[in-house]
């Protein structure tokens, strides 16, 4: 009797384990939890995990997607590659939501993602160079390329009648790519770049950089850097020395920590951030609040939710958790034809797919992927008013 009890206990234990195994599917969430954008990534990750929570127990035959977080560091390609390698080989994730910064994303895609045939959907890597990497169709992004952001920034400046700017960019793929695309667009619109100089992140003192930038004689300074890093240092030093007091920021610089650090001097600063005020964006805020997230409106949060949602829907459409099968279905669920799906409607989308229907995932950021698998891109034009980033209009 005792033996029987023991045996059945063991058996029960084993089946529970098997049950858990069979009904949990792992998805990697690789973002820079340490490093230059560490103040943004926790919210991005929880937005992605929100999509997983929403579909818990509803994917395929009652499966739940669970997130495995990993640190991309944003800057260290070797560390990011090692972290992604671990996700794929030892955690056995079916897909990767990430990475975040363009440099590490390229490294992961080239070294680990594409060779292993794992789908990556990045919510925030925006370098134009990622459009043309050899990804064999495994790399997607819900963030638009900076080629578009450069154009939007140039348009905004033209509308405001600003014709001469100094540009400083963080010395990496993201900064360089954006500075180049902005320069091309701005010059085409008749503007003049007084000076374009790189800055290194993580230095204590940026007075030499600011001195050189201001010597070129422009009144406006465009900062294409990171909010918790050199970008902040450049702005602080510019204000301290009186070199510049009008700033133009790109997406990496938009964050509340900047306003908290700098204060009222930042009023009047203009910037751009991928996003829209579509029905999906508003719906996302509701879903995020209802889901108990700390914030419902942060940089790249909608894109992160969408990145995870796309992979979950593709998994359902493929009818399996096979990595290659997921890859084949991403474009199908992201684009028309099909029923439009907004945030909070993932369960409905799964039902439609189960019954053989088609969906066109709109999501929080108005997802439509171009033929290379990246968001076409709408941008919010922002302005700092009374210590807050306010959306002026959508471009």
């Amino acid at each position: 009797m005792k033996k029987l009890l023991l045996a059945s206990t063991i058996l029960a234990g084993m089946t529970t384990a098997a049950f858990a195994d069979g009904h949990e599917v792992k998805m990697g969430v690789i973002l820079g939890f340490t490093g230059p954008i560490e103040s943004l990534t926790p919210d991005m990750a929880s937005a992605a995990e929100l999509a997983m929570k929403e579909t818990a127990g509803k994917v395929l035959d009652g499966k739940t997607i669970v997130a495995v977080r990993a640190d991309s560091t944003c800057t260290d390609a070797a560390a990011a590659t090692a972290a992604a390698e671990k996700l794929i080989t030892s955690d056995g994730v079916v897909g990767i939501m990430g990475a975040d910064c363009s440099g590490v994303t390229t490294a992961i895609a080239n070294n680990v993602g594409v060779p292993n045939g794992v789908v990556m959907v990045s919510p925030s890597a925006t370098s134009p160079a990622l459009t043309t990497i050899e990804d064999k169709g495994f790399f997607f992004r819900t963030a638009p390329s900076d080629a578009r952001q450069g154009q939007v920034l140039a348009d905004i400046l033209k509308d405001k009648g600003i014709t001469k700017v100094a540009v400083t960019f963080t010395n990496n793929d993201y900064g360089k790519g954006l500075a180049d695309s902005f320069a091309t667009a701005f010059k085409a619109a008749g503007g003049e770049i007084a000076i374009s100089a790189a800055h290194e992140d993580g230095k204590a003192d940026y007075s030499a950089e600011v001195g050189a930038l201001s010597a070129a004689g422009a009144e406006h300074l465009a900062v294409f850097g990171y909010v918790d890093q050199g970008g902040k240092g450049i702005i602080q030093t510019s204000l301290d020395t009186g070199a510049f007091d009008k700033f133009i920021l790109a997406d990496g610089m938009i964050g509340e920590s900047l306003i908290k650090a700098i204060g009222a001097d930042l009023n009047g600063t203009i910037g751009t951030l991928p996003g829209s005020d579509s029905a999906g964006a508003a719906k996302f805020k509701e879903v995020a609040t209802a889901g108990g997230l700390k914030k419902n409106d942060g940089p790249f949060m909608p894109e992160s939710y969408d990145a995870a949602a796309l992979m979950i829907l593709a998994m359902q459409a493929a009818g399996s958790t096979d990595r290659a099968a997921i890859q084949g279905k991403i474009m199908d669920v992201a684009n028309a034809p099909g029923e439009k799906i907004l945030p909070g409607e993932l369960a409905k989308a799964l039902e439609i797919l189960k019954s053989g229907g088609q969906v066109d995932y709109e999501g929080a950021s108005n997802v439509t992927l171009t033929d290379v698998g990246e968001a076409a891109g709408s941008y919010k034009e922002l302005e700092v008013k009374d210590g807050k980033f306010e959306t002026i209009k959508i471009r």
Partner: protein
Amino acid sequence: MIDFLNALTLFANFVLIPGLTYGSQLALGALGITLLYGILRFANFAHGDTMAFGTMVTILATWWLQGTGVSIAPLPTALLALPIGVAATAIFALATDRLVYRHYREVKAPPIRLVMASVGVMFVMNGIVRFIIGPNDQSFMDGERFIVKARAFKNATGLNEGLAIKSSQMLTVVMAMVLVALLFWFLNRTRTGKSMRAFSDNEDLALLSGISPQKVVTVTWILAAGLATIAGVLYGLDKSFKPFTYFQLLLPMFAAAIVGGVGHPVGAILGGFVVAFSEVAVTYAYKKFITYLVPVDYAPEGLMQLLSTDYKFAVSFIILVVVLLVRPTGLLKGKVI
């Protein structure tokens, strides 16, 4: 005339004041290196991390003081916490000497072995600092940030160019002057100071005349730790504290000590300013400055920048190499103290 004043203000704002501040910070750091070299006869690679350690203790004490509501506004609270930082660093330095360096002195090890030991100490301190306060940026400046604000200066003078003087910059320069004066008075006028100089000149002769080597070594470590902590805190107040940047400061500080003539306190100060001004002046773009001075037609097209700011650190390297090649003893003959 107005153009001339504009040019002068521009130069002061972007070259003179930052250079003076940075130079003072380097000079204080280089003084510590030079003292240790003159008396203990080895190059202390752990000096940058000693700065980081001292600054860390001061920051922790500052937070504690801020927590209890103590403030000496408009001055930064860190000044009040500074003695705690200096004391802790001095104790730490003496403990290191007892545990590591004393052994090598007793066995009369060649200087290179002491240098290598100091590299080891450097890594340990590096780790301790990161372990306690973390690798991130810490800003601990409070109180009034500016003495002269750029915009206020423009409005008051009617010039095109603004001049900003941060209170941390003024504090740095004043503190450096006071400290250097005190140090020279100590070395030249007090009994202990004189015995240190004697020890540095000729160790055997000093020992024969009854100078206690233990006392000289102890005082040297306390002075070096104190100077390092103060330099670190001033640098942190002016810029920001991050363990890695403090480690990087090692290079310009060594360059300063060697350029001035290693073992020579006046040389360390001179070297500090030479290195600081070269870094700032070589990487500054002079376009606007020259445009103010010359007739409109001669205004330069380019940026008039000798080296891109990316190469700032390379400047200290270049100075170091050139000095070692051309004048290995330094600007002032590197006669020990």
